[in-house]
Protein backbone atom coordinates (compact mmCIF):
# COMPACT_ATOMS: atom_id res chain seq x y z
CA UNK A 1 0.00 0.00 0.00
CA UNK A 2 1.31 3.42 -0.92
CA UNK A 3 2.12 5.51 2.10
CA UNK A 4 -0.57 8.05 2.75
CA UNK A 5 0.49 11.66 2.67
CA UNK A 6 -1.19 13.94 5.17
CA UNK A 7 -1.24 17.73 5.23
CA UNK A 8 -0.24 18.54 8.79
CA UNK A 9 0.75 21.50 10.88
CA UNK A 10 4.21 21.13 12.38
CA UNK A 11 3.00 21.35 15.98
CA UNK A 12 0.34 18.70 15.40
CA UNK A 13 2.79 16.48 13.54
CA UNK A 14 5.04 16.40 16.61
CA UNK A 15 2.07 15.36 18.74
CA UNK A 16 0.96 12.58 16.40
CA UNK A 17 4.54 11.32 16.01
CA UNK A 18 4.95 11.23 19.79
CA UNK A 19 1.79 9.13 20.11
CA UNK A 20 3.05 6.77 17.39
CA UNK A 21 6.32 6.50 19.32
CA UNK A 22 4.38 5.21 22.32
CA UNK A 23 4.28 8.39 24.38
CA UNK A 24 1.33 8.13 26.77
CA UNK A 25 2.00 11.01 29.14
CA UNK A 26 2.05 14.69 28.23
CA UNK A 27 2.11 17.57 30.67
CA UNK A 28 2.38 21.12 29.42
CA UNK A 29 1.32 24.70 29.73
CA UNK A 30 0.18 26.90 26.80
CA UNK A 31 2.43 29.35 24.99
CA UNK A 32 2.51 30.62 21.41
CA UNK A 33 3.79 29.47 18.91
CA UNK A 34 3.50 25.87 20.11
CA UNK A 35 -0.11 25.89 21.38
CA UNK A 36 -1.45 23.55 18.69
CA UNK A 37 0.77 20.81 20.11
CA UNK A 38 -0.71 21.10 23.58
CA UNK A 39 -4.20 21.36 22.10
CA UNK A 40 -3.61 18.32 19.88
CA UNK A 41 -2.43 16.27 22.84
CA UNK A 42 -5.43 17.33 24.92
CA UNK A 43 -7.67 15.74 22.30
CA UNK A 44 -5.61 12.78 21.07
CA UNK A 45 -3.90 11.57 24.24
CA UNK A 46 -7.14 10.42 25.92
CA UNK A 47 -8.14 8.68 22.66
CA UNK A 48 -4.97 6.59 22.96
CA UNK A 49 -5.62 5.83 26.61
CA UNK A 50 -2.84 8.12 27.79
CA UNK A 51 -2.73 11.01 30.21
CA UNK A 52 -2.85 14.66 29.23
CA UNK A 53 -2.38 17.29 31.89
CA UNK A 54 -2.52 21.02 31.46
CA UNK A 55 -0.38 21.80 34.46
CA UNK A 56 -0.67 24.90 36.62
CA UNK A 57 2.75 26.05 35.43
CA UNK A 58 5.71 24.99 33.33
CA UNK A 59 7.63 24.03 36.47
CA UNK A 60 4.81 21.73 37.53
CA UNK A 61 4.63 20.25 34.03
CA UNK A 62 8.30 19.27 33.85
CA UNK A 63 8.17 17.74 37.32
CA UNK A 64 5.14 15.68 36.30
CA UNK A 65 7.21 14.50 33.35
CA UNK A 66 9.97 13.59 35.81
CA UNK A 67 7.53 11.52 37.84
CA UNK A 68 6.04 9.70 34.85
CA UNK A 69 9.50 8.98 33.47
CA UNK A 70 10.62 7.60 36.84
CA UNK A 71 7.71 5.18 36.58
CA UNK A 72 8.97 3.97 33.19
CA UNK A 73 6.58 5.81 30.86
CA UNK A 74 7.47 7.41 27.56
CA UNK A 75 6.76 10.99 28.39
CA UNK A 76 7.03 14.47 26.94
CA UNK A 77 6.40 18.16 27.33
CA UNK A 78 6.68 21.14 25.03
CA UNK A 79 6.84 24.89 25.19
CA UNK A 80 8.49 27.93 23.67
CA UNK A 81 11.55 29.79 24.95
CA UNK A 82 10.17 31.47 28.11
CA UNK A 83 8.43 28.27 29.18
CA UNK A 84 11.50 26.16 28.46
CA UNK A 85 13.50 28.54 30.66
CA UNK A 86 11.14 27.68 33.52
CA UNK A 87 11.53 23.98 32.79
CA UNK A 88 15.32 24.08 32.95
CA UNK A 89 15.39 23.25 36.65
CA UNK A 90 13.43 20.06 36.05
CA UNK A 91 15.49 19.17 32.99
CA UNK A 92 18.64 19.43 35.08
CA UNK A 93 17.05 17.06 37.64
CA UNK A 94 16.07 14.61 34.87
CA UNK A 95 19.66 14.61 33.61
CA UNK A 96 21.10 14.21 37.10
CA UNK A 97 18.70 11.34 37.81
CA UNK A 98 19.31 9.83 34.36
CA UNK A 99 15.67 9.83 33.34
CA UNK A 100 14.65 9.88 29.67
CA UNK A 101 12.08 12.30 28.31
CA UNK A 102 11.43 14.14 25.10
CA UNK A 103 10.51 17.79 24.72
CA UNK A 104 10.03 20.35 21.98
CA UNK A 105 10.97 24.00 22.06
CA UNK A 106 9.19 25.86 19.27
CA UNK A 107 11.27 28.97 19.56
CA UNK A 108 9.94 32.53 19.61
CA UNK A 109 11.87 35.77 19.64
CA UNK A 110 13.68 36.65 22.88
CA UNK A 111 15.13 37.69 25.25
CA UNK A 112 12.42 38.08 27.87
CA UNK A 113 8.87 37.75 26.67
CA UNK A 114 10.18 38.91 23.28
CA UNK A 115 7.66 38.25 20.54
CA UNK A 116 5.93 35.27 18.98
CA UNK A 117 7.84 35.39 15.71
CA UNK A 118 10.12 32.51 14.64
CA UNK A 119 13.69 32.59 15.96
CA UNK A 120 16.68 30.38 16.71
CA UNK A 121 17.93 32.33 19.68
CA UNK A 122 17.57 29.46 22.16
CA UNK A 123 20.55 27.70 20.60
CA UNK A 124 22.88 28.25 23.55
CA UNK A 125 20.14 27.37 26.03
CA UNK A 126 19.57 24.07 24.24
CA UNK A 127 23.10 23.00 23.38
CA UNK A 128 24.80 24.01 26.62
CA UNK A 129 22.45 22.21 28.94
CA UNK A 130 20.49 25.30 29.86
CA UNK A 131 19.93 24.66 33.54
CA UNK A 132 22.37 24.30 36.42
CA UNK A 133 25.04 21.66 36.66
CA UNK A 134 27.19 19.82 34.18
CA UNK A 135 24.91 18.09 31.69
CA UNK A 136 23.80 17.92 28.08
CA UNK A 137 20.59 17.06 26.26
CA UNK A 138 20.50 15.69 22.72
CA UNK A 139 19.23 18.48 20.45
CA UNK A 140 17.57 17.72 17.13
CA UNK A 141 17.06 20.48 14.57
CA UNK A 142 14.39 19.58 11.98
CA UNK A 143 13.86 21.71 8.91
CA UNK A 144 10.65 20.21 7.51
CA UNK A 145 7.39 18.93 8.96
CA UNK A 146 8.45 15.44 7.86
CA UNK A 147 11.60 15.79 9.92
CA UNK A 148 9.55 16.95 12.89
CA UNK A 149 7.85 13.57 12.69
CA UNK A 150 10.98 11.50 12.11
CA UNK A 151 13.11 13.27 14.70
CA UNK A 152 10.36 13.16 17.33
CA UNK A 153 10.27 9.37 17.01
CA UNK A 154 14.07 9.19 17.00
CA UNK A 155 14.12 11.58 19.96
CA UNK A 156 12.20 9.12 22.13
CA UNK A 157 14.48 6.27 21.07
CA UNK A 158 17.66 8.21 21.77
CA UNK A 159 16.36 9.42 25.14
CA UNK A 160 15.66 5.83 26.17
CA UNK A 161 18.96 4.56 24.79
CA UNK A 162 20.95 6.93 27.01
CA UNK A 163 18.53 7.58 29.86
CA UNK A 164 18.77 11.27 29.13
CA UNK A 165 16.36 13.92 27.83
CA UNK A 166 16.37 14.74 24.14
CA UNK A 167 14.67 17.64 22.46
CA UNK A 168 13.58 19.24 19.23
CA UNK A 169 14.66 22.80 18.65
CA UNK A 170 12.15 24.12 16.12
CA UNK A 171 11.02 27.64 15.37
CA UNK A 172 7.67 29.34 15.00
CA UNK A 173 7.60 28.75 11.25
CA UNK A 174 8.10 25.00 11.59
CA UNK A 175 5.48 24.82 14.31
CA UNK A 176 2.88 26.84 12.43
CA UNK A 177 3.34 25.73 8.84
CA UNK A 178 1.55 22.86 7.14
CA UNK A 179 3.36 20.57 4.77
CA UNK A 180 2.70 17.08 3.40
CA UNK A 181 4.03 14.31 5.65
CA UNK A 182 4.12 10.56 5.71
CA UNK A 183 3.17 9.46 9.20
CA UNK A 184 5.08 6.49 10.59
CA UNK A 185 3.58 3.25 11.84
CA UNK A 186 2.85 3.16 15.55
CA UNK A 187 5.34 1.28 17.67
CA UNK A 188 4.32 -0.81 20.63
CA UNK A 189 6.41 0.69 23.35
CA UNK A 190 7.88 -1.93 25.64
CA UNK A 191 8.96 -0.50 29.00
CA UNK A 192 10.59 -3.78 30.11
CA UNK A 193 14.05 -2.35 29.44
CA UNK A 194 13.40 -0.02 32.36
CA UNK A 195 12.45 -2.60 34.96
CA UNK A 196 16.00 -2.51 36.34
CA UNK A 197 15.53 1.02 37.62
CA UNK A 198 11.95 2.28 37.15
CA UNK A 199 9.70 2.80 40.15
CA UNK A 200 6.49 0.88 40.75
CA UNK A 201 5.71 -2.87 40.78
CA UNK A 202 8.10 -3.11 43.70
CA UNK A 203 6.83 -6.26 45.36
CA UNK A 204 9.55 -8.87 45.88
CA UNK A 205 12.46 -6.84 44.61
CA UNK A 206 15.18 -4.61 45.99
CA UNK A 207 14.11 -1.02 46.28
CA UNK A 208 14.92 1.28 43.35
CA UNK A 209 16.03 4.79 44.01
CA UNK A 210 15.95 7.63 41.53
CA UNK A 211 17.66 10.76 42.72
CA UNK A 212 19.92 13.58 41.69
CA UNK A 213 21.19 14.21 45.22
CA UNK A 214 24.66 12.78 45.93
CA UNK A 215 26.00 14.28 49.11
CA UNK A 216 28.55 11.71 50.24
CA UNK A 217 32.11 12.86 49.46
CA UNK A 218 33.22 11.79 45.98
CA UNK A 219 29.88 10.33 44.89
CA UNK A 220 28.82 13.27 42.77
CA UNK A 221 32.15 13.47 40.99
CA UNK A 222 32.02 9.74 40.26
CA UNK A 223 28.46 10.12 38.98
CA UNK A 224 29.39 13.07 36.82
CA UNK A 225 32.30 11.13 35.33
CA UNK A 226 29.80 8.43 34.46
CA UNK A 227 27.59 11.07 32.82
CA UNK A 228 30.61 12.47 31.01
CA UNK A 229 31.42 9.06 29.53
CA UNK A 230 27.84 8.78 28.38
CA UNK A 231 28.01 12.20 26.73
CA UNK A 232 31.25 11.26 24.98
CA UNK A 233 29.54 8.14 23.64
CA UNK A 234 26.64 10.28 22.38
CA UNK A 235 29.14 12.61 20.71
CA UNK A 236 30.74 9.61 19.01
CA UNK A 237 27.54 7.93 17.86
CA UNK A 238 24.69 10.35 17.44
CA UNK A 239 25.95 13.18 15.24
CA UNK A 240 23.70 13.81 12.27
CA UNK A 241 23.98 16.31 9.43
CA UNK A 242 23.18 16.73 5.76
CA UNK A 243 25.61 17.79 3.05
CA UNK A 244 24.30 19.48 -0.09
CA UNK A 245 26.53 20.39 -3.04
CA UNK A 246 29.51 20.75 -0.73
CA UNK A 247 32.30 19.01 -2.68
CA UNK A 248 33.15 21.72 -5.19
CA UNK A 249 31.72 24.65 -3.22
CA UNK A 250 33.80 27.80 -2.74
CA UNK A 251 31.63 28.87 0.17
CA UNK A 252 29.83 26.38 2.40
CA UNK A 253 26.83 27.75 4.26
CA UNK A 254 26.16 26.27 7.67
CA UNK A 255 22.56 26.62 8.77
CA UNK A 256 19.85 24.58 10.46
CA UNK A 257 16.06 24.56 10.63
CA UNK A 258 14.17 27.16 8.64
CA UNK A 259 17.36 29.10 7.88
CA UNK A 260 18.72 25.95 6.21
CA UNK A 261 15.70 25.74 3.93
CA UNK A 262 16.42 29.24 2.66
CA UNK A 263 20.14 28.43 2.41
CA UNK A 264 19.44 25.35 0.31
CA UNK A 265 17.49 27.33 -2.23
CA UNK A 266 20.24 29.97 -2.24
CA UNK A 267 22.74 27.22 -3.14
CA UNK A 268 20.56 26.08 -6.05
CA UNK A 269 19.82 29.63 -7.24
CA UNK A 270 23.48 30.70 -7.16
CA UNK A 271 24.52 27.62 -9.14
CA UNK A 272 21.78 28.19 -11.72
CA UNK A 273 22.99 31.75 -12.20
CA UNK A 274 26.54 30.47 -12.64
CA UNK A 275 27.76 32.64 -9.77
CA UNK A 276 29.74 31.58 -6.73
CA UNK A 277 29.59 27.87 -6.09
CA UNK A 278 27.74 27.46 -2.82
CA UNK A 279 27.18 24.38 -0.74
CA UNK A 280 25.30 23.64 2.48
CA UNK A 281 26.15 21.76 5.62
CA UNK A 282 22.99 21.40 7.68
CA UNK A 283 23.43 20.13 11.24
CA UNK A 284 20.51 17.84 12.15
CA UNK A 285 21.85 17.43 15.68
CA UNK A 286 23.09 20.63 17.32
CA UNK A 287 24.40 18.69 20.29
CA UNK A 288 26.24 16.52 19.55
CA UNK A 289 27.58 18.97 16.99
CA UNK A 290 29.03 17.89 13.61
CA UNK A 291 32.44 19.22 14.57
CA UNK A 292 34.48 16.81 12.45
CA UNK A 293 32.48 17.40 9.28
CA UNK A 294 32.96 21.14 9.72
CA UNK A 295 36.68 20.73 10.45
CA UNK A 296 36.92 18.86 7.13
CA UNK A 297 35.67 21.95 5.31
CA UNK A 298 38.57 23.85 6.81
CA UNK A 299 41.01 21.17 5.64
CA UNK A 300 39.59 21.57 2.13
CA UNK A 301 40.26 25.33 2.35
CA UNK A 302 36.58 26.17 1.89
CA UNK A 303 35.15 29.45 3.15
CA UNK A 304 32.30 29.12 5.62
CA UNK A 305 29.23 31.31 5.99
CA UNK A 306 27.00 30.74 9.01
CA UNK A 307 23.38 31.81 8.42
CA UNK A 308 21.32 31.83 11.59
CA UNK A 309 18.26 33.46 13.17
CA UNK A 310 20.22 34.48 16.27
CA UNK A 311 23.16 36.78 16.84
CA UNK A 312 26.15 34.51 16.48
CA UNK A 313 25.32 31.44 18.57
CA UNK A 314 25.73 28.70 15.93
CA UNK A 315 28.63 30.84 14.69
CA UNK A 316 30.46 30.20 17.95
CA UNK A 317 30.26 26.39 17.60
CA UNK A 318 31.38 26.58 13.99
CA UNK A 319 34.39 28.70 14.92
CA UNK A 320 35.26 26.25 17.71
CA UNK A 321 35.08 23.44 15.16
CA UNK A 322 37.56 24.98 12.71
CA UNK A 323 39.95 26.39 15.36
CA UNK A 324 40.98 29.33 13.21
CA UNK A 325 41.78 27.15 10.21
CA UNK A 326 39.02 28.51 8.00
CA UNK A 327 37.51 31.89 7.33
CA UNK A 328 34.12 31.81 9.07
CA UNK A 329 31.66 34.61 8.33
CA UNK A 330 28.21 35.33 9.73
CA UNK A 331 24.84 36.40 8.36
CA UNK A 332 22.48 36.94 11.28
CA UNK A 333 18.87 37.91 11.83
CA UNK A 334 16.98 37.85 15.11
CA UNK A 335 13.61 38.55 16.72
CA UNK A 336 11.56 37.23 13.82
CA UNK A 337 13.89 38.21 10.98
CA UNK A 338 14.56 35.57 8.38
CA UNK A 339 17.45 35.51 5.91
CA UNK A 340 16.48 35.70 2.23
CA UNK A 341 18.07 33.82 -0.67
CA UNK A 342 19.46 37.04 -2.09
CA UNK A 343 20.99 38.04 1.24
CA UNK A 344 22.76 34.71 1.50
CA UNK A 345 24.12 34.89 -2.04
CA UNK A 346 25.25 38.48 -1.51
CA UNK A 347 26.87 37.59 1.82
CA UNK A 348 28.72 34.69 0.17
CA UNK A 349 30.08 37.18 -2.35
CA UNK A 350 31.36 39.35 0.47
CA UNK A 351 33.02 36.29 2.08
CA UNK A 352 34.92 35.53 -1.08
CA UNK A 353 35.90 39.15 -1.66
CA UNK A 354 37.27 39.67 1.83
CA UNK A 355 40.45 38.19 3.23
CA UNK A 356 39.03 38.62 6.74
CA UNK A 357 35.83 37.08 8.14
CA UNK A 358 32.79 39.33 7.74
CA UNK A 359 29.80 39.70 10.06
CA UNK A 360 26.63 40.80 8.31
CA UNK A 361 23.54 42.00 10.16
CA UNK A 362 21.08 43.03 7.42
CA UNK A 363 18.82 44.89 9.85
CA UNK A 364 21.71 47.16 10.85
CA UNK A 365 22.53 48.07 7.24
Amino acid sequence: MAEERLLMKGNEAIGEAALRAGCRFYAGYPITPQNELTEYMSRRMPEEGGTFIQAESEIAAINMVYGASAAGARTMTSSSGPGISLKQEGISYLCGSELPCFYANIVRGGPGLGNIAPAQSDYFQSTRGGGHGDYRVVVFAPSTVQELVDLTILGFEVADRYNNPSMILGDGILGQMMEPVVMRESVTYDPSGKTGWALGNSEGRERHMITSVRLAPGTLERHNVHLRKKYLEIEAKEVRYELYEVDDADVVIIAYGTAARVAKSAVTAAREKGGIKLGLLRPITLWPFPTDAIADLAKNKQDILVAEMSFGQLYEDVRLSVCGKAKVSLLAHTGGGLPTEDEIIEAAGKCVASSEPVEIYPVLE
Partner: protein
Amino acid sequence: MTTRVIMAGFGGQGVVLMGTLLSYSAMVQGKHTTFFPSYGAEMRGGTANCSVIVSDTEIPSPVVNEPDCVIAMNIASLDKFESRIRPGGVIFVNSSLVKKKVARDDIEEIRVPANDIAEGLGASRAANMVMLGCVLKKTGAVAVDSAVKSLEKVLSERAMALLELNKKALQRGFEEVS
Protein backbone atom coordinates in the same frame (compact mmCIF):
# COMPACT_ATOMS: atom_id res chain seq x y z
CA MET B 1 6.64 26.26 -11.79
CA THR B 2 6.15 27.90 -8.41
CA THR B 3 3.06 29.88 -7.39
CA ARG B 4 3.08 31.97 -4.23
CA VAL B 5 -0.30 33.14 -3.02
CA ILE B 6 -1.37 35.31 -0.09
CA MET B 7 -5.03 35.15 0.89
CA ALA B 8 -6.45 37.72 3.25
CA GLY B 9 -9.73 38.87 4.68
CA PHE B 10 -11.80 39.30 7.83
CA GLY B 11 -11.65 36.50 10.35
CA GLY B 12 -14.67 34.39 9.37
CA GLN B 13 -14.42 34.87 5.60
CA GLY B 14 -12.83 31.46 5.23
CA VAL B 15 -9.33 32.56 4.36
CA VAL B 16 -7.67 29.66 6.16
CA LEU B 17 -10.00 27.17 4.47
CA MET B 18 -9.09 28.61 1.07
CA GLY B 19 -5.41 28.20 1.82
CA THR B 20 -5.80 24.73 3.26
CA LEU B 21 -7.80 23.57 0.25
CA LEU B 22 -5.23 24.94 -2.20
CA SER B 23 -2.39 23.30 -0.30
CA TYR B 24 -4.22 20.00 0.13
CA SER B 25 -5.12 19.83 -3.55
CA ALA B 26 -1.49 20.46 -4.47
CA MET B 27 -0.43 17.60 -2.21
CA VAL B 28 -2.96 15.28 -3.84
CA GLN B 29 -1.47 16.18 -7.21
CA GLY B 30 1.98 15.18 -5.95
CA LYS B 31 3.30 18.72 -5.84
CA HIS B 32 5.40 20.36 -3.17
CA THR B 33 3.38 22.72 -1.04
CA THR B 34 3.50 24.75 2.15
CA PHE B 35 0.82 26.62 4.07
CA PHE B 36 1.77 29.29 6.56
CA PRO B 37 -0.82 31.23 8.57
CA SER B 38 -0.44 34.59 10.19
CA TYR B 39 -0.63 33.61 13.82
CA GLY B 40 -0.83 35.27 17.17
CA ALA B 41 -2.61 38.52 17.71
CA GLU B 42 -5.52 37.76 15.39
CA MET B 43 -9.13 37.84 16.54
CA ARG B 44 -12.60 37.23 15.19
CA GLY B 45 -13.58 40.16 13.03
CA GLY B 46 -9.95 41.21 12.70
CA THR B 47 -7.86 40.41 9.65
CA ALA B 48 -6.56 36.94 8.89
CA ASN B 49 -4.16 35.87 6.20
CA CYS B 50 -2.23 32.87 5.06
CA SER B 51 0.46 32.15 2.52
CA VAL B 52 0.44 29.10 0.28
CA ILE B 53 3.20 27.97 -2.04
CA VAL B 54 2.65 25.35 -4.71
CA SER B 55 5.71 24.18 -6.58
CA ASP B 56 7.18 21.44 -8.73
CA THR B 57 10.39 21.68 -6.71
CA GLU B 58 11.36 21.73 -3.03
CA ILE B 59 10.15 24.86 -1.25
CA PRO B 60 12.61 26.89 0.82
CA SER B 61 10.86 29.16 3.29
CA PRO B 62 7.05 29.01 3.53
CA VAL B 63 7.02 32.75 4.24
CA VAL B 64 5.92 34.72 1.20
CA ASN B 65 7.38 38.22 0.95
CA GLU B 66 6.61 38.89 -2.71
CA PRO B 67 3.51 36.97 -3.80
CA ASP B 68 2.65 36.16 -7.41
CA CYS B 69 -0.96 36.47 -6.48
CA VAL B 70 -3.05 38.04 -3.70
CA ILE B 71 -6.68 37.44 -2.83
CA ALA B 72 -8.13 40.48 -1.08
CA MET B 73 -11.45 39.56 0.47
CA ASN B 74 -11.83 42.98 2.13
CA ILE B 75 -10.44 46.49 1.87
CA ALA B 76 -7.92 46.07 4.69
CA SER B 77 -6.35 43.20 2.75
CA LEU B 78 -6.07 45.27 -0.40
CA ASP B 79 -4.38 48.07 1.56
CA LYS B 80 -2.00 45.70 3.27
CA PHE B 81 -0.85 43.51 0.40
CA GLU B 82 -1.14 45.53 -2.82
CA SER B 83 2.37 46.90 -2.48
CA ARG B 84 3.93 43.50 -1.92
CA ILE B 85 2.85 41.75 -5.12
CA ARG B 86 5.68 41.10 -7.55
CA PRO B 87 5.56 43.24 -10.69
CA GLY B 88 3.48 41.37 -13.25
CA GLY B 89 1.55 39.58 -10.52
CA VAL B 90 -2.21 39.44 -10.04
CA ILE B 91 -4.57 40.70 -7.38
CA PHE B 92 -8.07 39.28 -7.02
CA VAL B 93 -10.34 41.81 -5.37
CA ASN B 94 -13.68 40.88 -3.83
CA SER B 95 -15.60 43.70 -5.51
CA SER B 96 -18.77 42.90 -3.56
CA LEU B 97 -17.10 44.48 -0.53
CA VAL B 98 -14.22 46.50 -1.95
CA LYS B 99 -15.11 49.50 -4.08
CA LYS B 100 -11.58 50.91 -4.10
CA LYS B 101 -9.49 50.30 -7.22
CA VAL B 102 -5.92 49.07 -7.26
CA ALA B 103 -3.44 51.93 -7.59
CA ARG B 104 -0.50 50.09 -9.16
CA ASP B 105 -0.32 49.76 -12.93
CA ASP B 106 2.33 47.02 -13.02
CA ILE B 107 0.01 44.32 -11.69
CA GLU B 108 -3.18 42.83 -13.06
CA GLU B 109 -6.40 43.50 -11.16
CA ILE B 110 -9.23 40.98 -11.39
CA ARG B 111 -12.42 42.14 -9.74
CA VAL B 112 -14.85 39.43 -8.72
CA PRO B 113 -18.17 40.12 -7.00
CA ALA B 114 -17.59 37.01 -4.92
CA ASN B 115 -20.21 37.60 -2.26
CA ASP B 116 -22.89 38.37 -4.84
CA ILE B 117 -22.02 35.30 -6.91
CA ALA B 118 -22.05 33.10 -3.84
CA GLU B 119 -25.33 34.64 -2.72
CA GLY B 120 -26.79 33.67 -6.07
CA LEU B 121 -25.68 30.09 -5.47
CA GLY B 122 -27.26 29.91 -2.05
CA ALA B 123 -25.10 31.63 0.57
CA SER B 124 -22.61 34.48 0.53
CA ARG B 125 -20.34 32.56 2.88
CA ALA B 126 -19.10 30.54 -0.09
CA ALA B 127 -17.46 33.69 -1.47
CA ASN B 128 -14.08 32.27 -0.55
CA MET B 129 -14.57 29.30 -2.87
CA VAL B 130 -15.65 31.56 -5.72
CA MET B 131 -12.39 33.47 -5.31
CA LEU B 132 -10.30 30.32 -5.12
CA GLY B 133 -11.94 29.03 -8.29
CA CYS B 134 -10.85 32.23 -10.06
CA VAL B 135 -7.31 31.81 -8.81
CA LEU B 136 -7.11 28.22 -10.02
CA LYS B 137 -8.22 29.24 -13.49
CA LYS B 138 -5.81 32.13 -13.72
CA THR B 139 -2.71 30.49 -12.20
CA GLY B 140 -3.18 26.82 -13.04
CA ALA B 141 -1.58 26.09 -9.65
CA VAL B 142 -3.75 23.00 -9.22
CA ALA B 143 -6.57 21.43 -11.26
CA VAL B 144 -10.05 22.56 -10.27
CA ASP B 145 -11.22 18.91 -10.22
CA SER B 146 -8.61 18.10 -7.66
CA ALA B 147 -9.76 21.02 -5.50
CA VAL B 148 -13.40 19.95 -5.82
CA LYS B 149 -12.49 16.39 -4.80
CA SER B 150 -10.36 17.60 -1.91
CA LEU B 151 -13.14 19.70 -0.43
CA GLU B 152 -14.62 16.87 1.59
CA LYS B 153 -11.20 16.22 3.11
CA VAL B 154 -10.67 19.74 4.38
CA LEU B 155 -14.17 20.86 5.32
CA SER B 156 -14.89 20.47 9.01
CA GLU B 157 -17.65 18.05 9.96
CA ARG B 158 -20.06 20.79 10.81
CA ALA B 159 -19.48 22.44 7.42
CA MET B 160 -20.18 19.21 5.53
CA ALA B 161 -23.77 20.29 4.96
CA LEU B 162 -22.33 23.00 2.73
CA LEU B 163 -20.20 20.62 0.65
CA GLU B 164 -22.29 20.86 -2.51
CA LEU B 165 -22.59 24.63 -2.25
CA ASN B 166 -18.82 24.92 -1.91
CA LYS B 167 -18.25 22.66 -4.91
CA LYS B 168 -20.60 24.77 -7.01
CA ALA B 169 -18.92 27.95 -5.84
CA LEU B 170 -15.48 26.65 -6.82
CA GLN B 171 -16.70 25.67 -10.27
CA ARG B 172 -18.54 28.95 -10.72
CA GLY B 173 -15.41 30.90 -9.79
CA PHE B 174 -13.37 28.83 -12.19
CA GLU B 175 -15.75 29.76 -15.01
CA GLU B 176 -15.87 33.42 -13.99
CA VAL B 177 -12.46 34.42 -15.34
CA SER B 178 -11.00 33.77 -18.73
